[in-house]
């Protein structure tokens, strides 16, 4: 191992091999995020459809679904969505059209970009280190982020959090570049992109503010002339003004009211709230550091991970612990401060809300955990590098277990997920909309039972030309349509005699559940 390191030392080969390896990692990251992405996860979930409809409306008419021209906040299902992701989807739709791929494309690209960004960040963090082995840390971090189930999964769905994370990483990278090169343009970029994260995903309202405080604290200490960072910081605050105003409005607090863990206690007397609320926050916060949550079962939301599989690979567990010990032992330098800062602040926003833990709201946590695990991997090899046989064995064992886990997860994802979690991803709404669209020409009208749930956004996405009427269960065919065939779509009520049934739409699950019945009346 030592000979290997010394051969590479001071050689131009190092940078070429590093670049080659990074390229390979990016290719791997791309493959894991792109493979069958239109159909896996199995269908668009309700928020993705809403994003798609708004993005398409912006592209075609310059307004959102509700007719508001180029809005900063998009009204959707009792909350307001942040604008960045929707406008990005709109951009993707100019090339890809109104497709599932277009809705997921910003997230996919952000997921892929996060890998080289993390590489860049870790490279800047360790640039002053004298330990040769640590020079592999950026590559190891990039590799682990590329394959981490937590990050891969959220990169494959239309999740705003993935884009927000990539922007956040970009802001950190620019800030670290400023620290190295002292060029003020990096500071501008860093603050501007940090402000943009707030307009991408709700959790960053807290994360970005905490980060900006750290940025300012650092700048206050290191900069001789305070006014040089005054303008970027002021610009950051100005950029945040709209969201600050929005956040205190009733519309802005609506989402927080819905998901706040504190709303459960709002009827308690103030003195009780004073000792319960901090404890509730602490309790929620600690859940994010549960090994069971991270490595075994995740947050148990079918949309957030494959059931029975954690957010990280199990084999990472031991390396993460070694990494933590190493981090504390060498507690000097930027690597320590940034990792600990991210570790502490990442779950803050999630801990304020329910359900907790929430894998999506705490996606930022994947970064410090990945850095720690990478540090642990290198640390383990540094510990045993004298014993060649042991080193070979460790590499072999770790690779084998990792390979098995990757294949196991891939198997569950491709074979089980689409069957078991189909309802988490829109169920049979897409198929229902397409079937209704196919049958509309041969019918005088289309009527849909109210109990079909959230079908309307799906109809708007997949069958925009379909005109239909939502009716109650007790609906009867109107007299003016007597003699003309009409299509009636309803859930399966387990009727014994299904007269006039055209066809039934089955879910791809094991029980062959009927999702919708199509009647010709």
């Amino acid at each position, binding site marked *: 191992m030592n000979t290997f390191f010394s051969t590479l030392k001071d050689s131009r080969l190092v940078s070429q091999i590093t670049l080659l390896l990074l390229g390979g990692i990016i290719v791997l990251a791309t493959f894991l995020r792109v493979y069958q992405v239109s159909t896996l996860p199995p269908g668009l979930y309700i928020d993705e459809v809403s994003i798609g409809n708004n993005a398409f409306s912006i592209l075609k008419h310059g307004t959102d679904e509700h007719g508001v021209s180029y809005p900063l906040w998009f009204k959707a299902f009792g909350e307001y969505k942040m604008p960045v992701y929707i406008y990005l989807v709109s951009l993707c739709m100019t090339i890809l059209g109104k497709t599932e791929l277009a809705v997921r494309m910003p997230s996919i690209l952000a997921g892929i970009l996060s890998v080289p960004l993390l590489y860049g960040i870790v490279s800047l963090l360790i640039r002053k280190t004298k330990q040769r082995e640590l020079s592999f840390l950026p590559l190891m971090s990039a590799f682990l982020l590329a394959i981490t189930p937590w990050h891969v999964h959220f990169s494959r769905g239309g999740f705003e959090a993935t884009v927000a994370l990539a922007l956040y990483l970009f802001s950190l990278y620019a800030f670290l570049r400023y620290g190295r090169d002292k060029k003020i343009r990096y500071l501008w970029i860093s603050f501007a992109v940090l402000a943009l994260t707030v307009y991408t995903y709700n959790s960053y309202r807290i994360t970005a503010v905490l980060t900006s405080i750290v940025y300012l604290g650092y700048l206050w200490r290191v900069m001789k002339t305070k006014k040089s960072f005054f303008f970027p910081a002021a610009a950051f605050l100005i950029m945040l003004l709209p969201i600050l105003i929005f956040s205190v409005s009733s519309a802005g607090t609506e989402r927080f009211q819905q998901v706040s863990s504190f709303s459960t206690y709002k009827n308690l007397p103030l003195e009780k709230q004073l000792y319960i609320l901090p404890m509730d926050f*602490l309790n929620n916060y*600690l*859940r994010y*550091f549960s090994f*069971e949550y991270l490595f075994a*079962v995740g947050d148990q939301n079918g949309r957030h991970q494959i059931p*029975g599989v954690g957010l990280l690979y199990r084999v990472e567990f031991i390396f993460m612990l070694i990494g933590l010990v190493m981090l504390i032992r060498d507690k000097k330098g930027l690597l320590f401060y940034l990792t600990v800062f991210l570790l502490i602040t990442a779950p803050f926003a999630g801990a304020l809300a329910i359900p907790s833990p929430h894998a999506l709201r705490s996606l930022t946590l994947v970064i410090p955990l990945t850095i720690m695990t990478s540090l642990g991997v290198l640390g383990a090899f540094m510990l045993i590098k004298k014993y060649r046989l042991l080193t070979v064995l460790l590499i072999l064992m770790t690779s084998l277990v990792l390979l098995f886990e990757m294949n*196991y997860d891939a198997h569950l994802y491709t*074979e089980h997920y689409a069957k078991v979690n189909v309802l988490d991803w829109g169920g049979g709404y897409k198929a229902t909309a397409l079937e209704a669209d196919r049958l509309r020409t041969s019918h005088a009208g289309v009527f849909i039972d109210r109990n079909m749930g959230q079908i309307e956004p799906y109809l708007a996405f997949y069958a925009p030309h379909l005109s239909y009427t939502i009716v109650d269960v007790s609906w009867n065919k109107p007299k003016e349509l007597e003699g003309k065939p009409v299509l009636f779509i309803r859930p399966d009520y387990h009727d014994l005699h299904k007269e006039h049934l055209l066809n039934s739409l089955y879910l791809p699950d*094991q029980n062959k559940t009927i999702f919708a019945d199509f009647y010709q009346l």
Partner: protein
Amino acid sequence: MKKILLSLITVISIGYSARLWFVCQKFIDQFYFSSLDLQLRMVEAIHTDSQTPLFFVRFFHNKLTGSLIDVFRSYVLYYDVRFLLSLVGFTGFICALAGVYYLLVERKHKLLYVFLMLFFVFPFLSIFFRSIIPYQVWLIGFSLIVCVLSIYGIYRLKWNTWLLSVFVLSLLVTIWYQSMYTPLVLRFCML
């Protein structure tokens, strides 16, 4: 003298936290390995894989893989931050962490490695042998191991005003956490 006093306070705080656990009959099921659960999960997984080639079904869903996954899940539960906090309190937890850290990094006091080893091996014994030894024995055993590690942590830490403040704060939080938040114990044990 200061360290003896701090150790004493820590042991009392651990006892104060652990007392809540004696109302329980056993840990929740996830703490133990169950071959029946495993069998049911296997059946469900194989059923879902009805159209997958048999080789892959057997490769991914077999008792060896399933057991390893289940044991891993139970094992990490013993190191769940909230479980340890509700078992030994914040003070015990922080000091025990310091103890484990110093044992791993400094590699002194070989005798204490027995406790470190027990700390990591103990859950395995509990996972497999729950029916042989009563729950209370596991509880007392695990608390004692953490107790020893936390006392070691107290002896190794270089106490200054800042650390003492953290210690006092952790004591206050322990009292607060344990007196106001009893239901947390019920997340991990059965009455």
